[in-house]
């Protein structure tokens, strides 16, 4: 069974909408409150990155099933400037905007699976999955 719904990220309030969507899906799947908080925080980071660096893009939430386990997948896509050095952005404390630089490495730690694909000048595509235990 496939299930996917998306939120376009254009202004700051769309981040809240994406988060809300993620929280609802996580609740439906039966994630506990700690994992719900992890998922919403991860969505918040990814959506904010889109808003800050790419200007606009979208965040999709998907229910995924593999064998007998279920999970939630976040797909964040944008057609922004892309990331020059992926290895660097995955380092803690690296930032180009004066923030904490904990966003992407943080998301990786919050979720179970993390996959980033970025082409400079073309855009960025991030997928992150959390499995239900």
């Amino acid at each position, binding site marked *: 069974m496939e299930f996917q719904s998306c939120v376009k990220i254009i202004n700051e309030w769309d981040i809240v909408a994406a988060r809300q969507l993620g929280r609802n899906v996580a609740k439906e799947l039966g994630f506990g*409150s700690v994992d719900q*908080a992890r998922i*919403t*925080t991860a969505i*918040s*980071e990814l959506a904010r990155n889109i808003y800050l660096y790419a200007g606009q893009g979208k965040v999709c939430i998907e229910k995924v099933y593999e064998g007998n386990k279920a999970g939630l997948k976040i797909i964040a896509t944008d057609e922004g400037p892309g990331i020059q050095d992926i290895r660097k952005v995955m380092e803690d404390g690296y930032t180009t905007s004066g923030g*904490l630089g*904990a966003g992407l*490495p*943080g998301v990786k730690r919050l979720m179970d699976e993390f996959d980033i694909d970025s082409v400079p000048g073309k855009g960025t595509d991030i997928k992150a999955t959390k499995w239900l235990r």
Partner: protein
Amino acid sequence: MDNLVYNYIKENQAEILVKWMDRMKEKADERLIKQVSDHMFTRTSNEFIDMIVTNVERNHDEFIAKLSDFAEKVVRLGWPLTFVSEGLREFNWLVFEGMKEDGLITPENQMDIVYDFDKWSTPMSNEIVHIYSQTWERTVSLQKIALQELSAPLIPVLEKITVMPLVGTIDTERAKQIMENLLTGVVKHRSEVVLIDITGVPVVDTMVAHHIIQAAEAVRLVGAKCMLCGIRPEIAQTIVNLGINLNEIITKNSLRKGIEAALEITNRKIVEVEE
């Protein structure tokens, strides 16, 4: 407006209303039907047709007054704008069809009537959209003000101790206000300890944490101590996962613990009075 059309609408107002309501009921989606009782629907429809007729009578000022009343009501009822504009179109259509049936429209005058009709109905639909969006805009801006009022309150609970309870999402705009209110408040109330309570903040991501860290640093610069309270267990875990360093800030899990600690810092404590 052509007298022909005007007279037709005037004469057949009741009949048009019945037909119009039938058609609109077909078009209305479930949400609308559920929200609005039959009685309400009839009354509002009556008003709508009445309003259109006022415009037919070329009483423009009265029309605008009625329209803004109507728009306000319909916005409150939650009728979508599409439904109202569709209603206007349907009304035009009914009049046109009816006139054709009655033989009032002939191949000779048909184009003139179409032009006349358009001249009359376009400003009206523009007006409807205009008033509708104005009503919405006003609602939104009022809510924005209301939201701003509750965005970053600072409460001087005890001498030298101030609390800022935060509820809801923190965006850039609000983060700025938090910082400003915090700093002016600390100076104004001569606080030594400021407690920021985040029990009501749903998500603490790196941006929110960053703003809190900056605010705490600024508070330190004006000579006070900043304490972070109300960190729920799940928030604590996400903060650790994110790898955010809050070592510089004193943190407590509840506002009560925070106030106790603040009293300690200012060399006071709460004692029970013996009877």
